[in-house]
């Protein structure tokens, strides 16, 4: 099955005008509808407005680089097939791009035959997907009841993704443990204290990692369902301050707490919000701890306030190291961490999930070297949750 070229739109992203022009002509010659962008930001605007079937993206560009753009395109429009243009020495980047679902890559200078092969691959994938979609659509029309199962399948796919990420983390830890155990074993066999010492350190490091991972997962599992209760919004904030005050003092970081006592109780999950705030404050302390304070005072502040009618907000702010844009963009993704082996990449994703379930929002502004400012906004729910006939809930 072929894809009708006249309707196939290609977005061409390259900072070099010459390549845009030459490639644009070559593609138009083949009957594609071509639009071009000279940088990632412009390309994303095009993708947002009208997602193209195929995007051809230069891997190295000033500003947003090709890999970042690839990920963004895939996030905004998973069906768009992305072909990367790579330089001669960019092999690692090219492999990286395949890992992020680029369909293919072509190397500069661009050989037209190879371009043809890559385009064909993309076209095949697209028509296959269309076929699949038609089929699915047909099914849905025929059997309305089945749609519930499809939703379930989607949920399973999401779980599958999480499990895949998780299995990667666990595989790494298992590898570290196997390696550590082997080195320790040799230390015992050969009575070699250096092996013993090195191997033991590997084992301990990886045991710590798995302990952190399991704790985070346990917390994540707890966020599966909200337990709405009528509660004062300052309560979880106060608890978190109590928990963190000792650590802050120990590390010489000032905790600036301002809880607005004019706020009123509403229905939310105090334990969930407690976890969100604990996570944000702990991150803020980490950020301050890691930064070398430029002019003395390192401060983490936690405020509660009412930004608008029917909304309660928590603000967690620090004057630590801050984050660059790339880090901010990936902040809420599963298993993304800036803390190396120290972090598990679950905390913020979990926080966002709790806030989403409250139909609230979390916003971040951050400047590299200046600090980070998180604001969590929750709508004030006035009615109690509907009584559900669910005997698993185990009400007290």
């Amino acid at each position, binding site marked *: 099955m072929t894809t009708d070229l006249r309707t196939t739109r290609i977005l061409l992203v390259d900072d070099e005008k010459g390549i845009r022009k030459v490639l644009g002509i070559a593609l138009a010659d083949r009957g594609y509808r071509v639009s071009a962008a000279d940088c990632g930001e412009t390309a994303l605007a095009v993708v947002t407005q009208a997602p193209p079937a195929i995007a051809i993206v230069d891997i190295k560009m000033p500003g947003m680089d090709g890999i970042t753009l690839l990920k963004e395109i895939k996030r905004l429009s998973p069906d768009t097939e992305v072909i990367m243009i790579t330089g001669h020495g960019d*092999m*690692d980047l090219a492999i990286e791009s*395949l890992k992020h679902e680029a369909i293919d890559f072509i190397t500069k200078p661009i050989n037209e035959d190879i371009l043809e092969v890559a385009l064909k691959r993309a076209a095949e994938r697209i028509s296959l997907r269309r076929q699949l979609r038609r089929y699915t659509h047909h099914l849905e029309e025929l059997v309305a009841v089945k749609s519930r199962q499809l939703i379930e399948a989607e949920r399973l796919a999401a779980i599958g993704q999480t499990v895949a990420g998780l299995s*990667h983390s666990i*595989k790494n830890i298992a590898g570290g443990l*196997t*390696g550590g155990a*082997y*080195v320790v074993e040799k230390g015992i066999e050969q009575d070699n204290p250096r092996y013993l010492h090195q191997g033991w350190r*590997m084992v301990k490091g990886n045991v710590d990692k798995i302990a952190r991972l399991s704790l985070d997962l346990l917390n994540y599992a707890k966020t599966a369902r909200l337990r709405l209760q009528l509660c004062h919004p300052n309560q979880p904030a106060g608890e978190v301050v109590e928990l963190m005050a000792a650590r802050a003092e120990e590390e010489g970081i000032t905790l600036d707490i301002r809880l607005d006592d004019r706020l009123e109780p509403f229905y939310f999950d105090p334990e969930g919000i407690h976890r969100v705030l604990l996570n944000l404050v702990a991150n803020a302390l980490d950020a301050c701890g890691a930064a070398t304070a430029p002019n003395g005072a390192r401060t983490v502040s936690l405020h509660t306030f009412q930004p608008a009618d029917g909304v309660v907000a928590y603000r967690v702010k620090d004057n630590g190291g801050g984050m660059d844009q790339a880090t901010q963009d990936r902040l809420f993704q599963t298993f993304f961490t800036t803390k190396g082996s120290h972090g598990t990449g679950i905390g913020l994703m979990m926080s966002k999930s709790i806030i989403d379930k409250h139909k609230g929002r979390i916003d971040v502004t951050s400047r590299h070297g200046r600090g980070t400012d998180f604001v969590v906004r929750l709508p004030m729910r006035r009615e109690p949750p509907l009584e559900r006939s669910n005997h698993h809930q185990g009400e007290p």
Partner: protein
Amino acid sequence: MTHSAPKTVLVVEDALDMRIFIKTLLETNGYRPLVAKDGRHGMVLARQHRPDLILLDVMMPEEGGANMYRRLKADPKLNAVPVVMLSAVAPQTFNHYLRMLNTRTKDPVAEPDAYIEKPPDPAHLLRVLKRLA
């Protein structure tokens, strides 16, 4: 294994844990390990010592293993040294990269002698080493 001089194995790997593990594995099984943290340093050691075998990680900061592999295969003094890729990247991904590379060069780059996915099983790794060096 013969009782002649120990075989030299160059390990190019950025992760400290993995380096310690493989170095110990080699030392305790009669090999002479050389270690490098990235492809650039790896190439220097390879040229200096002409190892009997090279264990190469694919994804590394600075110069990665894919690039170093290509440079090894292009070097007439080193292209006969067996290379074992050791990586968390699936072998299909790496081989796709090689195929892409080969479509546009006159001298196609051969696939590595062996490909081991991380984390490596010590016994399996030793079997592969014994077979190749």
